[in-house]
């Protein structure tokens, strides 16, 4: 399809199209790009902080930064990467894509959507600026009572996260309402693209978990500024209560960061394998299962606290059971690729990287779900490795799979494939060299969040630091590709990958009101492939398939 002159895309002045990203827009596409652009700004900050951590840890002894700065950097790195980079990047991507995928003109509440973004921006600035007023130095987990005692930046951190919480809750309400009420006529739940299923599961988690964290943050703020003693034993409070409130949100946060990537994989793999997704309904159900189980596992972060086994042991079992739905996803993706005709381009490479890294996150995740094993792993570099395999190896790789895949739709330009592959190779190799040795470090006695360590860990840490610098550099390749291609890349056709979901029926980039004035033809989005021998051509998954 050629560029649609009637909608004005072809003739819109480029200057104006850039400027609208700096305005208070209620267009979900503009807001989506705003989210993603801001998240990349915060990503750069998070990378600089990570490089400082690795510089400090390159050799034993305290040298590059002092202990206060180090704890502040560790805290800000975790907070920025989770709350200001990965979640907003994924929310931004979903903001752009989900309404297009379901044939909607916009989100259900466009102004609320804009408010979510601007609240997120305020939250980000509060968290980052707080660093100047004496950095928050209790880690991104902010365990009381250490966090109650910390400097003023801790209060900025708390208020920032409260504001961010409101942004998340409003966004989640918006997404759930949009998916439930704004689907195009004929687009039933069992014809929804799996990306939409995973975003639905993700936003349900945000909606359930964030209010609990926000309440806990208020209590911590009151402990700091009003003299309450919710978490202080000296006044009859309980430091463990904070851990319950915190992890009730923050463990689901892991799935919040991984589910959208899983959704992206379920889109990219069938398109690049030219095969229907294998077990559509089982993948959709597994997202829901992860979402429900994800709310019932939080105490597995508290196996060493001395909380009663009556709480810990059932949560150990639920944590282990999560391996089942995640396993279903991995096996289904492999089965989708099996017998396909794989076009090995950047989005698919990132899917393959996701599966490979996620396998390690999953295996070590089951090990850490086992209480006796976790007692040794808890709070060590084993955990640091595990969480980076989950959040970076899976979450970020999934985000990149989605970003490369939808880049032509969002920008109207093709990215540079060679640069994309170099980016993948570099980030995949450097990622594994950086985080693999951390498993060993943790088991052999290196706790997390230390600025100094014993000399026997020097070699491993030096290797990690060097590889970490390469890993940080690899993001620059992506950014160069991103900006160069957006400015000068070849014009993207409407449907460069030959995909079947609705967003690809629109011009690239889509016109302002998406499908306004167009006829929406709903079809099963994974209807790829030549008919199997001996069976009729199926336009939707047979009822028996994974039902």
């Amino acid at each position, binding site marked *: 399809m050629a560029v649609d002159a009637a909608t004005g895309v072809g003739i819109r002045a480029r200057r104006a199209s850039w400027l609208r990203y700096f305005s208070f827009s209620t267009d979900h596409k503009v807001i989506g790009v705003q989210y993603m652009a801001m998240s990349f700004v915060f990503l750069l900050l998070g990378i600089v902080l990570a490089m400082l951590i690795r510089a400090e840890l390159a050799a034993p002894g305290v040298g590059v930064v002092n202990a206060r700065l180090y704890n502040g950097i560790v805290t800000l790195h975790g907070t920025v990467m989770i709350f200001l980079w990965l979640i907003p990047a994924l929310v931004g991507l979903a903001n752009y894509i989900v309404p297009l995928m379901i044939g909607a003109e916009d989100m259900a509440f466009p102004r609320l959507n804009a408010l979510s973004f601007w609240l997120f921006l305020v939250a980000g600035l509060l968290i980052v600026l707080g660093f100047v007023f004496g950095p928050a130095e209790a880690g991104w987990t902010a365990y009381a009572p*250490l966090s109650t005692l910390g400097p003023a930046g801790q209060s900025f951190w708390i208020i920032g996260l409260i504001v961010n919480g409101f942004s998340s809750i409003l966004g989640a309400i918006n997404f759930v309402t949009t998916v439930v009420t704004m689907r195009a006529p004929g687009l039933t739940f069992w014809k929804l693209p799996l990306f939409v299923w995973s975003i639905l599961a993700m936003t349900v988690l945000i909606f359930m978990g964030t209010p609990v964290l926000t309440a806990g943050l208020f209590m911590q703020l009151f402990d700091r500024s009003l003299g309450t003693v919710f978490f202080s034993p000296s006044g009859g409070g309980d430091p463990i209560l904070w851990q319950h409130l915190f992890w009730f949100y923050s463990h689901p946060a892991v799935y919040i960061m991984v589910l959208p990537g899983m959704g992206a994989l379920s889109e990219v793999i069938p398109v690049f394998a030219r095969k229907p997704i294998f077990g559509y309904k089982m993948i959709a159900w597994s997202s829901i299962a992860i979402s429900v189980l994800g709310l019932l596992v939080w105490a597995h972060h508290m196996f060493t606290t001395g909380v009663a086994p*009556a709480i810990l042991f059932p949560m150990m079992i639920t944590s*282990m059971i999560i391996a*089942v739905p995640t396993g279903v996803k991995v096996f289904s993706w492999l089965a989708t690729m099996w017998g396909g005709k794989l076009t090995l381009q950047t989005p698919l490479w990132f899917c393959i990287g996701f599966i490979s890294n996620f396998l390690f996150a999953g295996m070590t995740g089951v090990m850490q779900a086992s209480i006796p094993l976790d*007692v040794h792993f808890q709070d060590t570099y084993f955990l640091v490795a595990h969480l980076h395999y989950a959040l970076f190896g899976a979450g970020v790789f999934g985000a990149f799979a989605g970003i490369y895949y939808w880049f032509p739709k969002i920008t109207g330009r093709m990215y540079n494939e060679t640069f994309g592959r170099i980016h993948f190779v570099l980030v995949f190799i450097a990622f594994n060299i950086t985080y693999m040795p951390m498993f060993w470090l943790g088991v052999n006695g290196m706790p997390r969040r230390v600025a100094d360590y014993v000399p026997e860990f020097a070699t491993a840490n030096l290797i990690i630091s060097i590889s970490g610098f390469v890993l940080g550099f690899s993001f620059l390749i992506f950014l160069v590709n991103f900006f160069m291609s957006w400015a000068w890349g070849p014009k993207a056709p409407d449907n460069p990958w030959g995909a079947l979901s609705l967003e690809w029926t629109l011009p690239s980039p889509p016109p302002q009101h998406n499908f306004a004035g167009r006829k929406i033809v709903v079809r099963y989005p994974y209807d790829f492939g030549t008919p199997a021998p001996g069976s009729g051509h199926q336009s939707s998954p047979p009822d028996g398939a994974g039902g």
Partner: protein
Amino acid sequence: MKTNIRQVACIALVALFIILGGILIGLKMYQWFLPESVTVESAMYDQLFRFTVSIAGMVFLLVEGTLLYVLIRFHRRPGETGDGVAIHGNTSLEIVWTLIPAIIVTVLSFYSYDVLKSVDVAYDSAASWFCGPLTPAKALAEPVSGGNLVIDVISRQFSWEFKYPQYNNVSSSEMHVPVDEFVLLRLTSEDVIHSFWVPQFRLKKDSLPGYVNEARFEAKNEGTYPVICAELCGLGHSEMRTALIVESKEKFDAWIQSLVSQTESAQTGDPVAQGRALFARLGCGACHTLSDVGTEGQLGPSLDGFGARAGGRIPGVSAEDYVKTSLRTPNAYIVAGFLDAMPSFADRLDDAELNALVQYLLQQ
């Protein structure tokens, strides 16, 4: 039929390779990956580790192997067009790859429970199953019952103190335990959350303010092992380490008897000796270098030659007042180039102890 037999043989071979390979990975990781195993409990841990890693090894070989095979076998050749085969699913296959992981995690849960029953005090009785091992901190004042050695682990920013309630409550900044004996730890914290970790024991327990937590172990090998704080506890977290010495019953008895008599003589002796004992007991050396007691802490200023400097530090403040204020409200005077990392000792020392510590420090 011939193809069928070949297929079955092929699948059987791959399955055999995955199972044996997984077991091999489990055995090798068990040898290469883990630090020395010292206690009865760590030996059980290592068995569970070996079992779990063997299964993980099988999953690893299966998934990464399939991924590699798919990449090699099914990538699009140059000039190749067309789609893959339109297979939407396979119910029996999907049931298999849901059930097998479910069985694996069920087995792992039972095995974990079995290990927990032996290693964790919380699994000893129905009461502790439902209420947990945590008791209010005042429980430490109660007399110790039972024949096992009890050690009270007191943590504070940024040091460990080990008290022996069955031996006049004497205390030490290093932990000594006899080999081949059950030891019960009662852990608590004076300020923020710390976590007591001995990697060679596979033992970690949080030490919480306001609570007493419990852990137990039985060491099988003599040696010196690190005690590490695993929970971020403030600016000196990296330095919060000490030594755990497992020694023969005879050596342990000799050590504890000499500690008891030292403590008695320090209490009756001159304040300087008492101050020296306090310095060691409170773990001041975690942050301060002091050659007299052989500590090398770097977070705070060195105290070598302190007595000569203390008087001139703040104009109008005598050396004695300077030390007293620094112990009670450490942030009052910060030496240039150092952080306000030190906790207050105002509530932890009575007047006589404070005085003794001051006298000792002024003699350095």
